[in-house]
Protein backbone atom coordinates (compact mmCIF):
# COMPACT_ATOMS: atom_id res chain seq x y z
CA UNK A 1 0.00 0.00 0.00
CA UNK A 2 1.26 3.46 -0.89
CA UNK A 3 1.85 5.83 2.04
CA UNK A 4 -0.83 8.38 2.89
CA UNK A 5 -1.79 10.91 5.53
CA UNK A 6 -4.47 9.61 7.87
CA UNK A 7 -7.03 12.09 9.19
CA UNK A 8 -9.31 10.92 11.99
CA UNK A 9 -12.05 13.48 11.50
CA UNK A 10 -14.29 14.49 14.40
CA UNK A 11 -16.80 16.59 12.47
CA UNK A 12 -18.33 16.84 9.00
CA UNK A 13 -16.69 20.25 8.58
CA UNK A 14 -13.31 18.66 9.25
CA UNK A 15 -13.98 15.98 6.60
CA UNK A 16 -15.06 18.54 4.02
CA UNK A 17 -11.96 20.67 4.72
CA UNK A 18 -9.64 17.67 4.39
CA UNK A 19 -11.34 16.44 1.22
CA UNK A 20 -11.41 19.90 -0.33
CA UNK A 21 -7.70 20.35 0.44
CA UNK A 22 -6.83 16.93 -0.98
CA UNK A 23 -9.05 17.07 -4.05
CA UNK A 24 -8.85 13.93 -6.15
CA UNK A 25 -5.98 12.68 -3.99
CA UNK A 26 -8.15 12.39 -0.87
CA UNK A 27 -10.75 9.74 -0.04
CA UNK A 28 -13.07 9.13 2.90
CA UNK A 29 -12.83 5.83 4.80
CA UNK A 30 -15.75 4.09 6.46
CA UNK A 31 -15.52 0.31 6.92
CA UNK A 32 -12.63 0.04 4.47
CA UNK A 33 -13.79 -3.27 3.02
CA UNK A 34 -13.65 -1.84 -0.50
CA UNK A 35 -11.16 0.99 -0.08
CA UNK A 36 -8.40 -0.99 1.62
CA UNK A 37 -8.52 -3.79 -0.95
CA UNK A 38 -8.35 -1.17 -3.72
CA UNK A 39 -5.36 0.51 -2.07
CA UNK A 40 -3.60 -2.82 -1.52
CA UNK A 41 -4.07 -3.89 -5.11
CA UNK A 42 -2.93 -0.49 -6.39
CA UNK A 43 -6.24 0.08 -8.15
CA UNK A 44 -6.52 3.39 -6.33
CA UNK A 45 -3.90 5.56 -4.64
CA UNK A 46 -4.59 8.49 -2.34
CA UNK A 47 -2.39 10.94 -0.45
CA UNK A 48 -5.00 11.49 2.26
CA UNK A 49 -7.42 9.03 3.83
CA UNK A 50 -10.10 10.60 6.04
CA UNK A 51 -11.67 8.30 8.61
CA UNK A 52 -15.37 9.04 9.16
CA UNK A 53 -16.15 6.62 11.97
CA UNK A 54 -15.59 8.99 14.89
CA UNK A 55 -18.17 11.50 13.68
CA UNK A 56 -21.37 10.93 15.69
CA UNK A 57 -23.87 11.83 12.93
CA UNK A 58 -22.23 9.41 10.48
CA UNK A 59 -22.51 6.60 13.04
CA UNK A 60 -26.09 7.27 14.07
CA UNK A 61 -29.25 5.17 13.61
CA UNK A 62 -32.17 7.48 14.44
CA UNK A 63 -35.77 6.43 13.92
CA UNK A 64 -38.48 9.06 14.32
CA UNK A 65 -41.85 10.03 12.91
CA UNK A 66 -40.10 11.38 9.81
CA UNK A 67 -38.40 8.04 9.10
CA UNK A 68 -34.91 6.67 9.54
CA UNK A 69 -31.69 8.66 9.57
CA UNK A 70 -28.92 6.18 8.81
CA UNK A 71 -25.43 7.58 9.23
CA UNK A 72 -23.35 6.77 6.16
CA UNK A 73 -20.68 4.90 8.13
CA UNK A 74 -22.87 2.69 10.35
CA UNK A 75 -21.65 -0.90 9.91
CA UNK A 76 -24.03 -3.52 8.50
CA UNK A 77 -24.14 -5.64 11.64
CA UNK A 78 -25.68 -2.81 13.68
CA UNK A 79 -28.30 -2.20 10.99
CA UNK A 80 -29.05 -5.90 10.60
CA UNK A 81 -29.62 -6.55 14.30
CA UNK A 82 -31.91 -3.52 14.75
CA UNK A 83 -35.43 -4.91 15.30
CA UNK A 84 -37.19 -1.69 14.30
CA UNK A 85 -35.31 -1.61 11.00
CA UNK A 86 -36.19 -5.24 10.34
CA UNK A 87 -39.86 -4.39 10.79
CA UNK A 88 -39.99 -1.00 9.08
CA UNK A 89 -37.33 -1.33 6.37
CA UNK A 90 -37.18 -5.05 5.60
CA UNK A 91 -35.25 -4.76 2.33
CA UNK A 92 -32.52 -2.88 4.21
CA UNK A 93 -32.47 -5.70 6.73
CA UNK A 94 -32.19 -8.27 3.92
CA UNK A 95 -29.25 -6.49 2.30
CA UNK A 96 -27.23 -5.96 5.44
CA UNK A 97 -27.49 -9.66 6.27
CA UNK A 98 -25.95 -10.83 3.00
CA UNK A 99 -23.17 -8.36 2.21
CA UNK A 100 -19.96 -10.35 2.71
CA UNK A 101 -19.54 -12.62 5.74
CA UNK A 102 -19.95 -11.85 9.41
CA UNK A 103 -16.60 -10.09 9.72
CA UNK A 104 -17.24 -7.92 6.65
CA UNK A 105 -20.61 -6.96 8.12
CA UNK A 106 -18.74 -5.86 11.25
CA UNK A 107 -17.15 -3.07 9.23
CA UNK A 108 -18.89 -2.51 5.89
CA UNK A 109 -21.32 0.43 5.72
CA UNK A 110 -24.21 1.24 3.42
CA UNK A 111 -22.72 4.66 2.71
CA UNK A 112 -19.52 2.98 1.62
CA UNK A 113 -21.40 0.46 -0.50
CA UNK A 114 -23.24 3.32 -2.22
CA UNK A 115 -20.13 5.47 -2.77
CA UNK A 116 -18.17 2.51 -4.11
CA UNK A 117 -20.88 2.42 -6.79
CA UNK A 118 -20.47 -1.17 -7.88
CA UNK A 119 -23.11 -2.18 -10.43
CA UNK A 120 -23.59 -5.37 -8.38
CA UNK A 121 -23.69 -3.69 -4.94
CA UNK A 122 -26.07 -5.60 -2.67
CA UNK A 123 -26.66 -2.48 -0.62
CA UNK A 124 -28.10 -0.21 -3.30
CA UNK A 125 -31.35 -1.72 -4.70
CA UNK A 126 -32.84 -1.75 -1.19
CA UNK A 127 -32.09 1.98 -0.85
CA UNK A 128 -33.82 2.64 -4.16
CA UNK A 129 -36.98 0.72 -3.26
CA UNK A 130 -37.07 2.36 0.17
CA UNK A 131 -37.05 5.78 -1.63
CA UNK A 132 -33.91 6.91 0.16
CA UNK A 133 -32.47 10.42 -0.08
CA UNK A 134 -28.72 10.88 0.18
CA UNK A 135 -27.58 13.77 2.41
CA UNK A 136 -24.35 15.26 1.14
CA UNK A 137 -22.08 17.87 2.72
CA UNK A 138 -19.52 19.85 0.77
CA UNK A 139 -17.52 23.06 0.54
CA UNK A 140 -20.61 24.89 -0.79
CA UNK A 141 -22.96 23.62 1.89
CA UNK A 142 -25.33 20.68 2.04
CA UNK A 143 -27.50 19.13 -0.64
CA UNK A 144 -29.67 16.08 -1.11
CA UNK A 145 -29.94 13.63 -3.97
CA UNK A 146 -32.36 10.80 -4.72
CA UNK A 147 -30.38 7.63 -4.20
CA UNK A 148 -31.20 6.29 -7.69
CA UNK A 149 -29.25 9.24 -9.12
CA UNK A 150 -26.20 8.70 -6.91
CA UNK A 151 -24.25 6.18 -9.00
CA UNK A 152 -23.18 7.51 -12.38
CA UNK A 153 -20.90 4.77 -13.76
CA UNK A 154 -19.17 1.63 -12.48
CA UNK A 155 -17.13 2.78 -9.46
CA UNK A 156 -18.16 6.43 -9.92
CA UNK A 157 -20.64 8.42 -7.86
CA UNK A 158 -22.21 11.87 -8.06
CA UNK A 159 -20.10 13.41 -5.28
CA UNK A 160 -18.16 16.49 -6.34
CA UNK A 161 -14.68 17.36 -5.11
CA UNK A 162 -14.73 17.97 -1.35
CA UNK A 163 -18.15 16.39 -0.85
CA UNK A 164 -18.95 13.58 1.56
CA UNK A 165 -22.04 11.41 1.98
CA UNK A 166 -23.28 12.08 5.51
CA UNK A 167 -26.44 10.00 5.81
CA UNK A 168 -29.20 8.08 4.12
CA UNK A 169 -32.70 9.35 4.93
CA UNK A 170 -35.45 6.73 4.71
CA UNK A 171 -39.02 8.07 4.66
CA UNK A 172 -41.44 6.62 7.23
CA UNK A 173 -42.87 3.48 5.60
CA UNK A 174 -46.57 4.15 6.23
CA UNK A 175 -49.15 1.41 6.62
CA UNK A 176 -49.47 -1.70 4.44
CA UNK A 177 -45.87 -1.30 3.30
CA UNK A 178 -43.57 -4.20 2.52
CA UNK A 179 -40.19 -4.56 0.87
CA UNK A 180 -37.57 -7.21 0.08
CA UNK A 181 -34.15 -7.68 -1.50
CA UNK A 182 -33.05 -10.93 -3.13
CA UNK A 183 -30.01 -11.90 -5.13
CA UNK A 184 -28.91 -14.89 -7.14
CA UNK A 185 -25.47 -16.36 -6.46
CA UNK A 186 -24.24 -19.84 -7.38
CA UNK A 187 -22.96 -20.43 -3.84
CA UNK A 188 -24.87 -20.30 -0.56
CA UNK A 189 -23.03 -17.29 0.87
CA UNK A 190 -20.12 -14.93 0.33
CA UNK A 191 -20.47 -14.14 -3.34
CA UNK A 192 -21.11 -11.24 -5.68
CA UNK A 193 -24.63 -11.02 -7.10
CA UNK A 194 -25.21 -12.41 -10.59
CA UNK A 195 -28.43 -10.39 -10.37
CA UNK A 196 -30.01 -8.62 -7.41
CA UNK A 197 -33.60 -7.40 -7.16
CA UNK A 198 -35.34 -5.13 -4.71
CA UNK A 199 -39.08 -4.53 -4.48
CA UNK A 200 -41.37 -2.46 -2.29
CA UNK A 201 -45.15 -2.18 -2.28
CA UNK A 202 -47.90 -0.25 -0.58
CA UNK A 203 -51.14 -2.25 -0.49
CA UNK A 204 -54.74 -1.24 0.04
CA UNK A 205 -56.16 -1.83 3.53
CA UNK A 206 -57.72 -5.13 2.42
CA UNK A 207 -54.34 -6.24 1.02
CA UNK A 208 -55.84 -7.02 -2.39
CA UNK A 209 -54.66 -4.04 -4.44
CA UNK A 210 -51.19 -2.63 -5.05
CA UNK A 211 -51.38 1.13 -4.55
CA UNK A 212 -47.76 1.79 -5.47
CA UNK A 213 -44.56 -0.16 -5.99
CA UNK A 214 -40.87 0.34 -6.68
CA UNK A 215 -38.51 -2.11 -8.35
CA UNK A 216 -34.71 -1.97 -8.54
CA UNK A 217 -32.19 -4.31 -10.15
CA UNK A 218 -28.48 -4.81 -9.52
CA UNK A 219 -25.71 -6.29 -11.70
CA UNK A 220 -27.63 -5.82 -14.96
CA UNK A 221 -26.42 -2.35 -16.03
CA UNK A 222 -23.48 0.02 -15.44
CA UNK A 223 -25.24 1.28 -12.31
CA UNK A 224 -27.95 -0.18 -10.05
CA UNK A 225 -31.22 0.35 -11.95
CA UNK A 226 -34.42 1.98 -10.77
CA UNK A 227 -37.05 0.30 -12.95
CA UNK A 228 -39.68 2.97 -12.56
CA UNK A 229 -41.97 1.57 -15.26
CA UNK A 230 -42.27 -1.79 -13.52
CA UNK A 231 -43.51 -0.14 -10.34
CA UNK A 232 -45.88 2.10 -12.25
CA UNK A 233 -47.38 -0.89 -14.06
CA UNK A 234 -48.32 -2.35 -10.68
CA UNK A 235 -50.04 0.77 -9.31
CA UNK A 236 -53.78 0.25 -8.95
CA UNK A 237 -53.57 -3.41 -9.99
CA UNK A 238 -54.88 -6.38 -8.03
CA UNK A 239 -52.37 -8.62 -6.29
CA UNK A 240 -52.13 -11.62 -8.60
CA UNK A 241 -49.50 -13.75 -10.28
CA UNK A 242 -50.52 -12.19 -13.62
CA UNK A 243 -49.88 -8.69 -12.33
CA UNK A 244 -46.52 -9.65 -10.89
CA UNK A 245 -45.61 -11.41 -14.12
CA UNK A 246 -46.23 -8.20 -16.04
CA UNK A 247 -43.92 -6.22 -13.73
CA UNK A 248 -41.33 -8.98 -14.05
CA UNK A 249 -41.51 -8.72 -17.84
CA UNK A 250 -40.89 -4.98 -17.70
CA UNK A 251 -37.95 -5.48 -15.34
CA UNK A 252 -36.53 -8.14 -17.62
CA UNK A 253 -36.74 -5.79 -20.59
CA UNK A 254 -35.15 -2.95 -18.60
CA UNK A 255 -32.15 -5.11 -17.70
CA UNK A 256 -29.15 -4.36 -19.94
CA UNK A 257 -26.59 -6.83 -18.63
CA UNK A 258 -23.23 -7.93 -19.96
CA UNK A 259 -21.87 -11.47 -20.14
CA UNK A 260 -18.94 -12.10 -17.82
CA UNK A 261 -17.51 -14.77 -15.53
CA UNK A 262 -20.57 -14.58 -13.27
CA UNK A 263 -23.30 -14.96 -15.87
CA UNK A 264 -24.43 -14.49 -19.43
CA UNK A 265 -26.75 -11.85 -20.82
CA UNK A 266 -29.52 -14.43 -21.31
CA UNK A 267 -29.18 -15.79 -17.78
CA UNK A 268 -29.17 -12.33 -16.24
CA UNK A 269 -32.22 -11.23 -18.24
CA UNK A 270 -34.06 -14.35 -17.12
CA UNK A 271 -33.01 -13.88 -13.50
CA UNK A 272 -34.14 -10.25 -13.56
CA UNK A 273 -37.70 -11.39 -14.20
CA UNK A 274 -37.63 -14.29 -11.76
CA UNK A 275 -36.11 -12.29 -8.91
CA UNK A 276 -38.40 -9.31 -9.47
CA UNK A 277 -41.43 -11.53 -9.11
CA UNK A 278 -40.04 -13.31 -6.05
CA UNK A 279 -39.00 -10.07 -4.34
CA UNK A 280 -42.49 -8.70 -5.00
CA UNK A 281 -44.10 -11.78 -3.47
CA UNK A 282 -42.02 -11.40 -0.31
CA UNK A 283 -42.74 -7.66 -0.16
CA UNK A 284 -46.48 -8.37 -0.48
CA UNK A 285 -46.33 -11.06 2.21
CA UNK A 286 -44.59 -8.62 4.51
CA UNK A 287 -47.10 -5.86 3.78
CA UNK A 288 -49.94 -8.24 4.61
CA UNK A 289 -48.22 -9.96 7.52
CA UNK A 290 -48.69 -13.35 5.83
CA UNK A 291 -46.22 -16.03 4.76
CA UNK A 292 -47.34 -17.58 1.50
CA UNK A 293 -43.83 -17.89 0.06
CA UNK A 294 -40.51 -19.18 1.37
CA UNK A 295 -37.51 -16.97 2.21
CA UNK A 296 -36.50 -17.00 -1.47
CA UNK A 297 -39.94 -15.94 -2.64
CA UNK A 298 -40.89 -19.34 -4.08
CA UNK A 299 -44.46 -20.66 -4.11
CA UNK A 300 -44.51 -24.15 -2.62
CA UNK A 301 -41.07 -24.96 -3.91
CA UNK A 302 -41.68 -23.95 -7.52
CA UNK A 303 -41.56 -20.72 -9.53
Amino acid at each position, binding site marked *: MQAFDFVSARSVDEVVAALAAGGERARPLSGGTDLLTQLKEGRRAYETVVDLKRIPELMEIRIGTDGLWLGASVPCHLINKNADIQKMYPALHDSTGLIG*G*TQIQGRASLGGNLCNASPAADGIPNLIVHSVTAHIAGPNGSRTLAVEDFCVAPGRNALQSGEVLVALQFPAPGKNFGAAYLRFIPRNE*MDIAVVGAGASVVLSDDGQTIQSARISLGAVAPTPLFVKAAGEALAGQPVSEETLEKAAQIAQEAAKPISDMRGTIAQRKHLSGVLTKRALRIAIDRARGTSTVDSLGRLNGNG
Partner: protein
Amino acid sequence: MAKKVMVQTVINNDDTTFVCETRQTLLEVLRDELGMTGTKEGCGNGNCGACNVMLDGVLVNSCLVLAVEAEGRTVTTIEGVAEAEGLHPIQQAFLEHAALQCGICTPGFIISSKALLEQNPNPSEHDVRLWLAGNLCRCTGYDKIVRAVLDVASAGQAKAGA
Protein backbone atom coordinates in the same frame (compact mmCIF):
# COMPACT_ATOMS: atom_id res chain seq x y z
CA MET B 1 5.98 11.71 3.49
CA ALA B 2 6.42 11.03 7.18
CA LYS B 3 3.61 8.69 8.02
CA LYS B 4 4.61 7.19 11.37
CA VAL B 5 2.05 7.54 14.10
CA MET B 6 1.77 6.39 17.69
CA VAL B 7 -1.31 4.34 18.54
CA GLN B 8 -2.61 3.50 22.01
CA THR B 9 -4.75 0.42 22.31
CA VAL B 10 -5.70 -2.37 24.66
CA ILE B 11 -4.76 -5.74 23.20
CA ASN B 12 -5.91 -8.84 25.10
CA ASN B 13 -6.45 -6.71 28.20
CA ASP B 14 -2.94 -5.21 28.09
CA ASP B 15 -2.42 -1.50 27.46
CA THR B 16 -0.36 -1.53 24.29
CA THR B 17 1.24 1.42 22.54
CA PHE B 18 2.88 0.96 19.17
CA VAL B 19 4.32 3.06 16.39
CA CYS B 20 3.23 2.23 12.88
CA GLU B 21 2.94 3.61 9.40
CA THR B 22 -0.53 4.84 8.49
CA ARG B 23 -0.62 2.37 5.63
CA GLN B 24 0.03 -0.65 7.84
CA THR B 25 -2.90 -2.91 8.59
CA LEU B 26 -3.73 -4.10 12.08
CA LEU B 27 -2.71 -7.57 10.92
CA GLU B 28 0.75 -6.37 9.88
CA VAL B 29 1.28 -4.58 13.18
CA LEU B 30 0.11 -7.53 15.26
CA ARG B 31 2.43 -9.92 13.47
CA ASP B 32 5.42 -7.83 12.43
CA GLU B 33 5.65 -5.11 15.07
CA LEU B 34 4.18 -6.82 18.13
CA GLY B 35 5.29 -10.40 17.40
CA MET B 36 1.77 -11.76 17.87
CA THR B 37 1.91 -14.28 15.08
CA GLY B 38 -1.11 -16.31 16.15
CA THR B 39 -3.25 -14.20 13.84
CA LYS B 40 -2.65 -15.50 10.32
CA GLU B 41 -2.59 -13.87 6.92
CA GLY B 42 -4.49 -15.85 4.32
CA CYS B 43 -5.84 -13.87 1.41
CA GLY B 44 -5.15 -10.35 2.64
CA ASN B 45 -8.37 -9.06 1.10
CA GLY B 46 -11.16 -10.03 3.47
CA ASN B 47 -12.27 -13.28 1.88
CA CYS B 48 -10.79 -15.99 4.11
CA GLY B 49 -11.15 -14.93 7.76
CA ALA B 50 -7.75 -16.30 8.83
CA CYS B 51 -6.85 -12.89 10.29
CA ASN B 52 -10.06 -12.39 12.25
CA VAL B 53 -9.83 -10.49 15.53
CA MET B 54 -12.34 -8.72 17.74
CA LEU B 55 -12.21 -4.93 17.57
CA ASP B 56 -14.25 -3.34 20.37
CA GLY B 57 -16.10 -6.64 20.62
CA VAL B 58 -16.94 -6.81 16.91
CA LEU B 59 -15.61 -9.53 14.62
CA VAL B 60 -13.44 -8.02 11.86
CA ASN B 61 -10.80 -8.99 9.31
CA SER B 62 -7.60 -7.45 10.70
CA CYS B 63 -6.22 -7.30 7.13
CA LEU B 64 -8.95 -4.75 6.34
CA VAL B 65 -8.38 -2.53 9.37
CA LEU B 66 -5.67 0.11 9.40
CA ALA B 67 -3.60 -0.20 12.57
CA VAL B 68 -4.10 3.51 13.18
CA GLU B 69 -7.86 2.90 13.34
CA ALA B 70 -7.27 0.89 16.52
CA GLU B 71 -6.45 4.09 18.46
CA GLY B 72 -8.39 3.97 21.73
CA ARG B 73 -9.97 0.63 20.81
CA THR B 74 -9.73 -2.80 22.38
CA VAL B 75 -8.46 -5.74 20.36
CA THR B 76 -8.78 -9.44 21.14
CA THR B 77 -6.59 -11.86 19.22
CA ILE B 78 -6.18 -15.62 19.39
CA GLU B 79 -3.46 -15.07 22.01
CA GLY B 80 -6.12 -13.70 24.33
CA VAL B 81 -8.55 -16.60 24.03
CA ALA B 82 -7.06 -19.25 26.35
CA GLU B 83 -8.08 -18.94 29.98
CA ALA B 84 -5.83 -18.93 33.03
CA GLU B 85 -6.70 -22.53 33.81
CA GLY B 86 -6.01 -23.77 30.29
CA LEU B 87 -7.51 -23.84 26.84
CA HIS B 88 -10.79 -22.14 26.10
CA PRO B 89 -13.60 -24.70 25.62
CA ILE B 90 -13.68 -23.89 21.90
CA GLN B 91 -9.96 -24.59 21.58
CA GLN B 92 -10.41 -27.84 23.50
CA ALA B 93 -13.32 -28.85 21.26
CA PHE B 94 -11.29 -28.19 18.10
CA LEU B 95 -8.64 -30.60 19.46
CA GLU B 96 -11.15 -33.24 20.51
CA HIS B 97 -12.99 -33.14 17.20
CA ALA B 98 -9.77 -32.94 15.14
CA ALA B 99 -11.31 -29.82 13.63
CA LEU B 100 -8.04 -28.80 12.03
CA GLN B 101 -5.41 -30.22 9.74
CA CYS B 102 -2.83 -27.69 8.58
CA GLY B 103 -4.03 -25.19 11.19
CA ILE B 104 -3.59 -21.92 9.30
CA CYS B 105 -7.31 -21.12 9.38
CA THR B 106 -7.78 -22.29 12.97
CA PRO B 107 -7.11 -19.05 14.91
CA GLY B 108 -9.63 -17.27 12.71
CA PHE B 109 -12.21 -20.01 13.16
CA ILE B 110 -11.76 -19.97 16.92
CA ILE B 111 -12.14 -16.19 17.14
CA SER B 112 -15.22 -16.33 14.91
CA SER B 113 -16.76 -19.23 16.83
CA LYS B 114 -16.20 -17.46 20.12
CA ALA B 115 -17.90 -14.36 18.74
CA LEU B 116 -20.84 -16.48 17.59
CA LEU B 117 -21.34 -18.23 20.92
CA GLU B 118 -21.10 -14.97 22.83
CA GLN B 119 -23.91 -13.59 20.70
CA ASN B 120 -25.91 -16.80 20.26
CA PRO B 121 -25.13 -19.47 22.90
CA ASN B 122 -27.45 -22.03 21.28
CA PRO B 123 -26.97 -21.88 17.51
CA SER B 124 -28.42 -24.33 15.02
CA GLU B 125 -26.13 -26.05 12.54
CA HIS B 126 -27.41 -23.58 9.94
CA ASP B 127 -26.53 -20.65 12.23
CA VAL B 128 -23.00 -21.99 12.67
CA ARG B 129 -22.44 -22.57 8.97
CA LEU B 130 -23.85 -19.16 8.07
CA TRP B 131 -21.78 -17.34 10.71
CA LEU B 132 -18.60 -19.15 9.63
CA ALA B 133 -19.21 -18.67 5.88
CA GLY B 134 -16.48 -16.01 5.81
CA ASN B 135 -13.88 -18.39 7.27
CA LEU B 136 -12.31 -20.60 4.64
CA CYS B 137 -10.70 -23.97 5.39
CA ARG B 138 -9.16 -25.95 2.58
CA CYS B 139 -8.44 -29.09 4.63
CA THR B 140 -11.27 -30.24 6.84
CA GLY B 141 -14.38 -29.92 4.71
CA TYR B 142 -15.88 -27.92 7.61
CA ASP B 143 -17.91 -30.75 9.18
CA LYS B 144 -15.57 -31.31 12.08
CA ILE B 145 -15.36 -27.58 12.73
CA VAL B 146 -19.13 -27.24 12.77
CA ARG B 147 -19.46 -30.25 15.08
CA ALA B 148 -16.85 -28.82 17.45
CA VAL B 149 -18.72 -25.53 17.71
CA LEU B 150 -22.08 -27.24 18.20
CA ASP B 151 -20.52 -29.45 20.86
CA VAL B 152 -19.29 -26.41 22.82
CA ALA B 153 -22.74 -24.86 22.50
CA SER B 154 -24.54 -27.93 23.79
CA ALA B 155 -22.03 -28.33 26.64
CA GLY B 156 -22.68 -24.68 27.50
CA GLN B 157 -26.43 -25.32 27.43
CA ALA B 158 -26.04 -28.38 29.68
CA LYS B 159 -24.00 -26.31 32.11
CA ALA B 160 -26.50 -23.46 32.05
CA GLY B 161 -29.34 -25.94 32.72
CA ALA B 162 -27.51 -27.74 35.53
